[in-house]
Every structure is written in structure tokens, then in C-alpha cells.
């Protein structure tokens, strides 16, 4: 089957890079993971039989790559260098930074489910297929993720406004 990779890239690269960036908390790494996802997709060209399912395939691969990155980062994150601690600064988007921090603070599986469902518009059943889970598990992951996200976000807000 011939796949028009350039068209698929044009359609999905942006949302995929944004998704991976949110999941790992780093725009540059997110961009790298998106590129790697497409490289893997291109390499798997021969085994692709259903281009209509490509978006889900891309998101699944990007999710696995992001998990792998977060696992590696977790063991090395002793004292991450920030140059400065996160402080309100001129021109600094505090809310976006808080969202990034919270997504990094909650379990990766919950962050992925939240982003796929609330940000990328996948239905619950699609998230389940994409992550290889039952719909019930996705439902519970979304509920726990939502609770944890909101609690962590409010904790962070209180901390910053102290």
C-alpha cells in the first residue's frame, strides 16, 4: 500500500508534537519524539493496511516513546537544573508552566489518558484501543487523572500565591 507520508505529516505532526511535549514537559523533546514516531511509521510502511487508523497508531507510538522518556528521566531527576527556580517573571506564562508541571507530576498513564481524551479529541473507546486497555480502565484512569490533576494544580496555585 502506498502511503502519502508528507500529507499525513502535514495533518498530524503539529498535534502529535504538542501532545508529546505536554506529556514529557519539554517542547524540544516533544518535537524529537514526534519525529521519531514518524520515522518508525515510515519504517513500518509495509505492514500498514489501514491508513484511516494511522492517527491512532501515531499517537500510540508517541505515547510509548514518551513513557520511555519519562521513565528514564524519573531515575535521573535528582535535582533538575533550572538555572532559576520557577518564579513569576515578566513575559512568563505562569498558567502554561503550571499545566506543564502538573502533567509531569501525575502518573504518565493518567496524563496520557487526559490529553488524548480532553485535548486531542479521542473518544473513550478510541483511547482504550489506542492504549491497549479496556474502556472501564480508561474511565477509571480518566477519573483518577482528573482528580489528581485538579488537586495538584490547586496545590501549585496555592504555593505560588503564598
Amino acid at each position, binding site marked *: 500500500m*502506498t*502511503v*502519502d*507520508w*508528507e500529507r499525513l*505529516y*502535514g495533518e498530524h*505532526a*503539529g498535534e502529535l*508534537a*504538542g501532545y508529546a*511535549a*505536554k506529556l514529557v514537559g519539554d*517542547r*524540544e523533546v*516533544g*518535537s*524529537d519524539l*514526534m*519525529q*521519531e514516531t*514518524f*520515522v518508525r511509521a*515510515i*519504517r513500518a*510502511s*509495509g505492514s500498514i493496511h489501514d491508513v484511516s487508523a494511522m492517527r491512532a497508531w501515531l499517537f500510540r507510538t508517541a505515547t510509548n516513546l514518551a*513513557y520511555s*522518556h*519519562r*521513565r*528514564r528521566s*524519573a*531515575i*535521573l531527576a*535528582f*535535582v533538575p*537544573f533550572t*538555572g*532559576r*527556580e520557577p*518564579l*513569576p*517573571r*515578566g513575559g512568563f*506564562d505562569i*498558567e502554561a508552566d503550571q*499545566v*506543564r508541571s502538573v502533567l509531569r507530576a*501525575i*502518573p*504518565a*498513564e493518567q496524563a496520557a489518558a*487526559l490529553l488524548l481524551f*480532553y*485535548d486531542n479529541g479521542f473518544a473513550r473507546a478510541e483511547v482504550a484501543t489506542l492504549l491497549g486497555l479496556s474502556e472501564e480502565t480508561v474511565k477509571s484512569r480518566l477519573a483518577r487523572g*482528573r482528580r489528581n*490533576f*485538579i488537586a495538584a494544580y490547586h496545590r501549585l496555585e496555592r504555593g505560588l500565591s*503564598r
Partner: protein
Amino acid sequence: MSDDELRRDLAEEDELRRLLHRTEPAPVPPFAAVARRADRRTGFGTFAATAGAALVVIAAIVLWRLASQAPAVASPSALPESTVGLAGQNAQPSATPNPAVLKSGFGVIYSGVRQGWDQGSAPQIRREGETDRGTGELAGSFFNNFHGMVSPSGRRAAYTGQTQDGQWGLYLLDGARPAEQRRLLALPNEIPGEVAWAADETAIAFNVQDHGATQGVAPKYSAIRTLDLASGMVNELARVTGGNLYHIVAWNKASGTLAATIAPNGEPATTYVVIGPAGTKTTPLDGAWGMYGSPDARTAIGVRCDGAPTYCSLWTWPLDDFGSRADQHLESGLWLGVVGWRPGSNEIGLVVGSGPKGQEQIEVWSPTAGRHIVYRFVDGKTPPSRPFFRADGSAIFVPGYGEAVVVDIATTATSPLPFPAPAALYERPLPAGSIRLDQP
């Protein structure tokens, strides 16, 4: 669910959706770059099955060749202040170096050249001031960041790597033979973390966790082990279960003392632990600490940040006695990042910021001579990763993607660090360490 509860629930969902839409988009390179990357990995045959794709590859090669032939960017030989920042992803042959600052007897280790296991994508070693790619290349891992520790003499580095089948291991870079990489130890089904050198450089201590653990899923165990470099003998010093992780502060081989912290998975450390001849001593930690052992592993420093209005404080203590820690009483209201211990001294490098909009700078702090400013950042231009000392402690590297500045500590003179032209589109080399090389 009552109407009120339903309304609250929907409002919460809307707010969540709004927040998750918040963050800014990540960079998206042209398709040609990704096509070329795929082509390198697969060989021409698989990917060039479509004519359109082949054209894209040719276009990418032409673009790359043009980029390679671009003239060097003229630049002052000394930079009064930082120009380091996220300057885009393509390194061009960079600026005129200052020979009074750069030393060719030292090599720079570059992280994250490219993802994957292709030749040339792993962290690379190049002489200061030169752009020769052939000096050395570390054992790769998929993300190809340098995770390791340079030895106290600066002549060797122990680091982690991962083969393409997923197996992690510990590797040795020797500055006398930078083109050769020696695997010290394979770690089947485990992920290595930090490395600490014995002061006599005959052994290392390192930590691992089981391979099954993922972020949000607690590891089954975390262990600290030592490895004798001559015999290859491995000795496990400690193991913790229940989802906790060890992080090594320092190992004093001579006294048989190792200091570490224990952190619940993904959380700040909660316990300081000393493993020594007299047994194991634990102390609960108050607040969030960053800790760094001195090269002789006798002393540790710690930075504790408490937020406004206190900000950060700097503490020191003998490695085996956290209870006797002393606050060094740097002025209040500072934010601190630790560069590290300055090799060959009892001094410490710090990134110091003085509040929300204050000046940020690199300082060298000495217990006897006080604070010495060596470099000022332009506001908002702090580097994307930790600055580091030259292996002999004579300079500090301020890293950036595709550009970096070297600061001579004695004179505060600076030099841009030359980068080679990219061998592939979207290379992102980032200086991450310094090592002594034999003279050319």
C-alpha cells in the same frame, strides 16, 4: 447526581479542557528532515518506494549540503555577556574562538546529538576549540544524552548506555583513548541511574532500579552497588523496596561510607541515609533538597529552596553527619542552582538569581574567600542545562543548543565554543561535560 453537582462537574471538565489546551505548540520541522532521518535508518530501498518521497530526500540532501557550505558567522572573539539561549536546532560552524580561553588538552562531551543508534548520533567528544568529529563517540542510548560522572582527576568518565536490544549498561570513557569505549557492566532488566567515583578512581558506586518500573508505577526495588574496575567485582550495598528510589550523594571508599537519599517514586527525597561500617543511619529530610558530594567524598553541600520570601539557602556538612549541617548564610531572597564542586578545590559553582526580575549570574563560592561573580546572564537567557566546570576547574562552560560560552574563571574572559556544521538536519548537540585528553 443533583443538578448542582452536574453543573459543577461540567464546569470542572470545561476548566480541565481549557487548561490542557493551554501550552504552546512544539516545533515542527519540515517533512524533509524526518524523511531523511527515516532514510538513514532504513536504507534507501524501504523508504524510497514512492517517487514523491525520493524527491523529498534529494531536496533534504541539497539543503544539507548548502548548510554545510555556509560561511562561518562572524562574531566577537569575546562575549561580554551571555548570548546563550535556544537558538534554533541547526548548529552552524560557529564563531571565532578565543585561544586565550580554550585549551586543546581538554575535550567536551556533547549530549543528544541525534536520537537513535546510527553512527554519529551518540554523545561525542571533541577537543575544545576544534570541531573534529573523529575524536570520540560514546556508547549510544536511544536519547543519546550524556548521563555519567567525570572522575576526580578529570581523566575518565563512567556513564550509562543502552544497546539497541534495550539492555542498559555502564561504560567507561578514558581521555587517553577517547575513540574506544569500554563496557564495564551489563545490567539486564535494570535501569542505571547516577554514578559516583571513589577518590582513588579504582571503583565506582552506582544505583539501579528494576526495568519494569515506569513513571507512576512504583519500582519493585532500587539498589546501590559498587563496581571494582580492575576485577569487575560487584557488591550490593543497599536495597530498598516499596516504591522508593535511592539517589547517591557521594561514596567515600576509603572510609567505607556512602551517603544517599531515599525518595518515594517521583517525589522529593524524604530521608538522608548513611551506609557505613557502623551500620545504616537515617535522618528525615525537612523540605526539598538538592545535594552534591565533594570529589574527595568527605563533605556534602545542599541547597534547600522554600519559596518566597525565604527562597534558597546553602548548607554544608560532613558526609556522614547530616545532623551537623551548617547554613552558610548567603544573603536572603536568592534563588540558587548548583553548578557543582570546582575540581581541584573546595569551592562551589552556583547559579544565583536575586528574585523575580533580578540579575542572574554564575558565582564561585569559597568557604574562605567568599563569593566571586564570574559571569552574568542577560535576563531570560539562562542555559537549557546545567553549566559545568572544565575538568581542571579553570573554566566554566555555559551550554546551549548549537552555541556555548566558555568562561575563564581567573580572568572572566570568555570565548564562544566552536561547533561543527551539522552532519544531519536537526542535530541538537549540547555540551554536557569536560574531560582531560592527551595532548594532540
